[in-house]
């Protein structure tokens, strides 16, 4: 998938565990894991806003575009 989430990198920089981030933004570990492993098909703006607020980062810090195989829907 061309859009890759670098959530683990930003979480490591902020020294925050997945379950703590999930607790702060109101998401379960499994949902965050979907995002972290690149299986997510869509991200709500509200979720992106909550992650950026807790990790004190910009949306661009979390996502990276890599040209390659497009995702088939």
């Amino acid at each position: 998938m061309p859009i890759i989430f670098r959530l683990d990198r930003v979480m490591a920089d902020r020294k925050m565990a997945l379950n703590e981030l999930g607790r702060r933004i109101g998401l379960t570990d499994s949902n965050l894991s979907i995002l972290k492993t690149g299986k997510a098909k869509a991200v709500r703006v509200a979720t992106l806003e909550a992650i950026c607020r807790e990790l004190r980062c910009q949306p661009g810090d979390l996502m990276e575009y890599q040209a390659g195989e497009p995702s088939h829907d």
Partner: protein
Amino acid sequence: MRYFGPKSLSSVMAKALKVLWVLALLATILAPFAGTAVIYFSTPQGEAFLEKVKTGASSCIKPGDLDGADLSAKDKADWAKFKAVPLPLKLLMLPYGMAVLLLLLTVLSRARRLFESFRDDRVFRQENVALMKNLAKLLIAYGVLTFSFNTLLIAVILLMACEVIKNGAVLQEEHDLTV
């Protein structure tokens, strides 16, 4: 009334179909024996054997016990009609009957799996689409074999419902993978 999930109509249907499946399985196992016996007793040799039993050749049964006084006039007429059918045709009835029973068994099994999926709140899934399509094809075959227009109609409606569930499955997957 709840249709999906635990303690819903789907749960009741899953249990009912399980019971029906067991009954159909028993019928399928017993049918060859019962069918063979009926065909045999409709032949002259079978009738002779029945007569021997009636006239007390067996020490356990007294004469007159099996006079058939319990058979109604309609039953006697139906039995006479069945006896008049040629033997090759009678022998064809056995595989036809077994085919109908085996199809019924498969239909009940697929339907039970579908309702079990609905009971577990897994409605919009690709595996259910495949199950429904399979079930519809089996119902078409069953409808053709038993000359039942109602069954054919239900099969067509089921095929259409398949498309709805298919679209639902796509939306469900998108919803499940939206964070």
